[in-house]
């Protein structure tokens, strides 16, 4: 994974709460077997409305999504993160995230930062006043800034460290392979196995 220290892009308002992963990417787009090329699927149903935010030219290339509470609830589909990333989003800021979405984002280098509802409202207002305004999310400092307006963002230490270092989770875990093997040697015989088929 690439190292990430900060990202900058247009602040894009998503003025809704409870944006579930079925909205981020409807299930019909989950039939693909690839990991890229999901940009057309992002918010596919909502994008049919010409007034939808991503249909406005200033937001049509993604950036940093500023969303209402409970963003990414519902299904475990990592495709939701891939679709946001493929469309051009590098970060999402929201007061609350679905647990699995947040975890998936951390694995794919999409910054999921927690900010307060009041801060979300304030940024929405700044965007209304200046559509296309740029926001920088700084992972080192754990801040988000629009011009002079700077707020801190919540992101857990471990995810931050992995993103800053660009570390691959599987590679990290395999450094402990001997301990996994030792653990397995103590596994009780009653614990189930799928093979042989019974």
């Amino acid at each position, binding site marked *: 994974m690439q190292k990430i220290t900060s990202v900058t892009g247009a602040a894009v308002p998503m003025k*809704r*709460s*409870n944006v*579930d992963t*079925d*909205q981020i990417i*409807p*299930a*019909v787009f*989950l*039939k*693909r*077997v*690839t*990991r890229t090329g999901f940009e057309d699927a992002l918010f596919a*149903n909502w994008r049919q409305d010409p007034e939808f935010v991503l249909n406005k030219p200033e937001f049509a290339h993604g950036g940093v999504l500023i969303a*209402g*509470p*409970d963003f990414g*609830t*519902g*299904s*475990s*589909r*990592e*495709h939701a*993160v891939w679709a946001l990333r493929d469309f051009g989003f590098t970060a999402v800021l929201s007061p*609350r*995230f679905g*647990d*699995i979405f947040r*975890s*998936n984002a951390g*694995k*794919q280098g999409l910054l999921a930062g927690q900010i307060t*509802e009041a801060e979300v409202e304030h940024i929405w207002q700044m965007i209304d006043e200046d559509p296309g305004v740029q926001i920088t999310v700084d992972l080192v400092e754990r801040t988000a800034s629009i011009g002079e307006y700077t707020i801190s963002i919540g992101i*857990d*230490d*471990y995810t931050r460290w992995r993103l800053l270092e660009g570390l691959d*989770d*599987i590679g*990290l*875990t*395999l450094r*402990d392979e001997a*301990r*996994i093997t030792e*653990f*397995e040697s*103590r596994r*009780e*015989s*009653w*614990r*189930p*196995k*799928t*093979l042989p*088929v*019974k």
Partner: protein
Amino acid sequence: MNTAAKTATAPRTLAQKVWDDHVVVPGSDGAPDLIYIDLHLLHEVTSPQAFDGLRLANRPLRRPDLSIATEDHNTPTLEIHKPIADPVSRTQIDTLRANTAEYGVRLHSLGDIEQGIVHIIGPQLGLTQPGLTVVCGDSHTSTHGAFGAIAIGIGTSEVEHVMATQTLPLKPFKTMAINVEGALRPGVTAKDIILAVIAKIGTGGGQGYVLEYRGSAIRALSMEGRMTICNMSIEAGARAGMIAPDETTYRYLEGRAHAPAGQDWDDALAYWKTLPTDEGAVFDAEVFIDADELEPFVTWGTNPGQGVPLSEVVPDPSTIDDPNERSAAERALVYMDLEAGTPMKQIRVDTVFIGSCTNSRVEDLRAAAEIVKGHTKADNLRVMVVPGSARVRIEAEAEGIDKIFTDFGAEWRFAGCSMCLGMNPDQLAPGERCASTSNRNFEGRQGKGGRTHLVSPLVAAATAIRGTLSSPWDIEQDAAATETRNT
């Protein structure tokens, strides 16, 4: 696992005990614990990219003997002997078949007696057991927590991680006790309990927690009912829900294909009995629900927290204090084409769907069949019944349940996820309204423009008879009224 080592520690919860017994490498300095995974369930939608990743990195799949795959999300529920018509779905299924063959993973394909929704087949095979860690690239993996396992939905990167290492780096969860005391009235089910829980704590209420469902109403439930409850923990925002194992759990498991046997059974049982939360253990949060008071529940909106007792009316958004919830409610009413103040029971539906990992076990089908028996479905309504697995279908047929449904006018389908998420041809048309025993009423979930009301199998059955959202109590009243007229 190290099951004997833990003695004389502070009182612990069920979740803490299972967690502690799976720590391979404890985290330090804010790093997560490395947790061993006992059982990895796979299906066609969230696994192809993970297999690809494994292949690219030239890594083996560490434990094929702790992995099992099935085909469920994309599969048709009619004419399953024919090739899958949608070429993209077919490719995904073919990819799973090729990947599982290459990596030596057991697969139950369409047509196999053990094929079915991934969360139905784990318990059915006896693979889902107390004290395990279970993962799957599907958020409704929480279902397996009904046995006293820590069972969580994971993303595709994590699927690949488990394939390669049989572990996951995970931060410990907080714990929340959901205490449900009292006795459910006839006609009120596990589904109504969980819909009431979600309406109470909200779709974000469980974020960061493992929920432990406790209390006399939970103890009184069958394993099927417990699975329904744990299944929808994710709709309350929690990645996992759990119920302590007890005699009900052991009776369900004993004799199943992959349940322990002989000395292993005795050893397992001795361990399982140590798992329930200790007296004096402290939860990070607690919620109380009075089971005596519960009624059949139904959702009116587009998230699972937007629900009310069936006897109530569509709520008025202007009475909601929280601005986000208010605007969500306003938006939901527009999408659902409902007006505030309308009695829920006046809402007419076009489709009734009985199925999904929430409510497609034989007990669910039996309960719905008991209600529709001897009736004919309402006019202009379609009723789809989709068993959770091929085995459930066969068991139901042995009891004559299929005949009751087809006589009623319902379609009796083959097993799969079907209209719960409409990845196969089973979808709602735009504007179509559905009473569904599934778990998500999100916009477009069951088909673009479709409108979903989440209900129990009993409410689904009663609704199919009357054509409007109805409880089993309404059917009884209708019958009593008919009897009075006839005497």
